[in-house]
């Protein structure tokens, strides 16, 4: 029974405007999709989930302000987000002190979950996928050498560069050149000229898809014929309006899920997302969806375990209950079956996807 008008408030912090708005919007849209579906299906014993969403512009100060507002003014019971690593790190430390249940879908920086036991994430960490794609290059593609081009002003890109380099050293794979560029650059020809000079078999592009596409395009223009290897940020490259698929034909990238998977959960998600937003979901959307799913299911568990007349609040006690429920998560999600390790990171594999004939195709689990 209970009061059917009662709602449970969850906060969302995402970069909705600014330079990284694309990622934030993908996550926010997916979260909304899940919450809508969940509420339509009846919520938790009639109680609906309400999300309060704030923009952080991808900026640490804004994220801290948004966090404070959600916790102190809006009295949310838990928070999803932020989306990219820098704001997430500054919120992580604050929230650890308050012990607020937090889950980010997408912040891949290793330290995010290290400040306290309250922070969870739906994605794997950077070192993991960096290692995976490097091993894939050596084992599966039998490549001998590779070069890296990365964004020096971005923690995500730099982190992946480091893990690729480390794995390469470990397995004896040759890195012929490592070149950097700055945020906002659109001309990579100088760096690519240097890279091509060293004749690598593959080029690692640990970067989001917008720049990755430009890099591939210019590398081809400069006569590079080898293979491009990307990361989860590459996902979405084919969804850009007016993209020329031939440029990225044959590219491999590590990802959280394969949209062409026949797994019924994935099929349904892709379909629903498509219906609501008129486009295919990318990995960020899938992770946002999963984050929402994991958190809401934990809340559901808490309420159901609370028994008749239980009213969820944002008290310290209830926060701990949600955190405990989160830790016990075992759920079939879009990006795979999720269970958390002792550091609140999901234990899951990454998938390798190849772009063939203008579409993503699942290649292997790694």
């Amino acid at each position, binding site marked *: 029974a209970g009061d059917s008008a009662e709602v449970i408030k969850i906060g969302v912090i995402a970069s*909705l*405007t600014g330079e990284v708005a694309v990622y934030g919007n993908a996550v926010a849209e997916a979260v909304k999709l899940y919450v809508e579906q969940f509420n339509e299906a009846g919520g938790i014993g009639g109680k609906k989930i309400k999300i309060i*969403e*704030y*923009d952080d512009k991808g*900026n*640490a*100060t*804004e994220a*801290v*302000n*948004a966090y*404070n*507002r*959600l*916790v*102190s*003014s809006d009295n949310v019971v838990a928070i999803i987000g932020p989306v990219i690593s*820098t704001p997430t*790190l*500054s919120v992580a*430390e*604050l929230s650890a002190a308050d012990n607020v249940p937090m889950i980010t879908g997408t912040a891949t*920086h290793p*330290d995010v979950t290290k400040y306290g036991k309250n922070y969870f994430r739906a994605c794997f960490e950077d070192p993991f996928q960096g290692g995976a794609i490097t091993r894939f290059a050596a084992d599966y593609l039998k490549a001998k050498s590779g070069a890296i081009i990365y*964004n*020096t*002003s*971005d*923690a995500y*890109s*730099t*982190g992946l560069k480091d893990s690729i380099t480390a794995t390469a050293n470990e397995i004896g794979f040759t890195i012929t050149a490592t070149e950097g560029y*700055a*945020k906002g650059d659109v001309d990579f020809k100088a760096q690519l000229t240097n890279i091509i000079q060293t004749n690598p078999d593959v080029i690692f592009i640990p970067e989001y898809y917008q720049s990755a596409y430009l890099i591939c395009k210019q590398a081809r223009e400069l006569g590079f014929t080898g293979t491009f290897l990307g990361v989860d940020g590459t996902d979405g490259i084919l969804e850009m309006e007016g993209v020329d698929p031939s440029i990225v034909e044959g590219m491999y990238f590590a990802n959280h899920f394969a949209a062409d998977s026949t797994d019924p959960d994935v099929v349904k998600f892709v379909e629903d997302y498509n219906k609501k937003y008129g486009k295919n979901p990318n990995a960020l959307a899938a992770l946002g969806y999963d984050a929402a799913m994991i958190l809401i299911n934990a809340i559901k568990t808490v309420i159901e375990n609370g028994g008749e007349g239980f009213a969820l609040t944002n008290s310290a006690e209830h926060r701990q209950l949600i955190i405990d429920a989160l830790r016990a998560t075992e759920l079939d999600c879009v990006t795979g079956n999720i269970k958390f390790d002792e550091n609140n990171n999901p234990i899951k594999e990454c998938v390798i996807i190849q772009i063939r004939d203008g579409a993503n195709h699942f290649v292997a689990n790694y």
Partner: protein
Amino acid sequence: MKPTRLIDKTWFRYIINTIAVLLAFGLLVLLTGPTGEGGLLNKYMSQIFIPMGINIILAVSLNLTAGFLGQLPLGHAGFMSVGAYAAALFSIHTDFPKAISFPLSLIVGGIVAAIFGILIGLPALRLKGDYLAIITLGFGEIIRVIILNIPKITGGAYGLKGIPKDTTVISTFVCVVITLFLIHALIKSRHGRAIISIREDEIASEASGIPTTYYKVTTFSFSAFFAGIAGGLYAHFIGVLDPAEFGFMRSVEILVMVVLGGMGSIIGSVVAAGALTVLPEVLRGFSEYRMVVYSLLLIVVMVFKPSGLFGRYDFSLCGAASDIAKAIKKLTHRNKLGIHEEAGK
């Protein structure tokens, strides 16, 4: 004639101002609680005072060069970042007790920024106007790129983490008060007059015996010093430093506060910095339209009040009090006249 003031004794004005500061302090403690929690306001509202204070320090210190010295620097965020990293590194790598380490780290941040101010000011201040703007913009970007590329020290793009979160509303307030006092003390002195005379006419200033280069560089490093303090506060507030935070847009944001408040008006900078910190928070509910509204507001204010909200108005408590007294007198006086007129009809 010398403007008559309600209270003409300097020492008395100082007592009044001290009392006002103490009252403000008391109010702040009441609102936010002694530790930033447990006051009348919730934590979110209390915490806003910190970025507000940081922005006030940044705006007022930039006003020193932009408003009083009359130069146009576009790299203030660069000094802020230098101060932030210096203070943070100091805190991370020393283990004094917090009560010593935090204030000391702020001073270290300020001094390192001031040294950069001198290093950059010496060559840059040979140029004027837009050229100075561009060259300081360039220095700001260089600082940022260098911070990004010495990851061993600064953490590079990963950001610098593990900075103790020592900044509180109270410590911010103390820094704001000290900054305002020192900058006010500087402006209202022979040095301040020399600085303003450079803005008014550099050649005449030289001809009156003012060593303009010395004063320009000094002002520049002063301004950088306070930006460094603000950086230190920021570092210990947010806990993580990301070089991207200190880009060109940050410098522009600070400049906007100064210009909006009025170049050469300290109270203007304080009010504008306060308002522009709160405004985006008020607009948080409309995140999509937030920046559009913000930019429109900027244009509209400039078009209708190009000298900024306060022009060059300088605020003093006693001055304001006597202004109000005068206004009341005038009002009552006019009333009498009004009655008189009616009677005459």
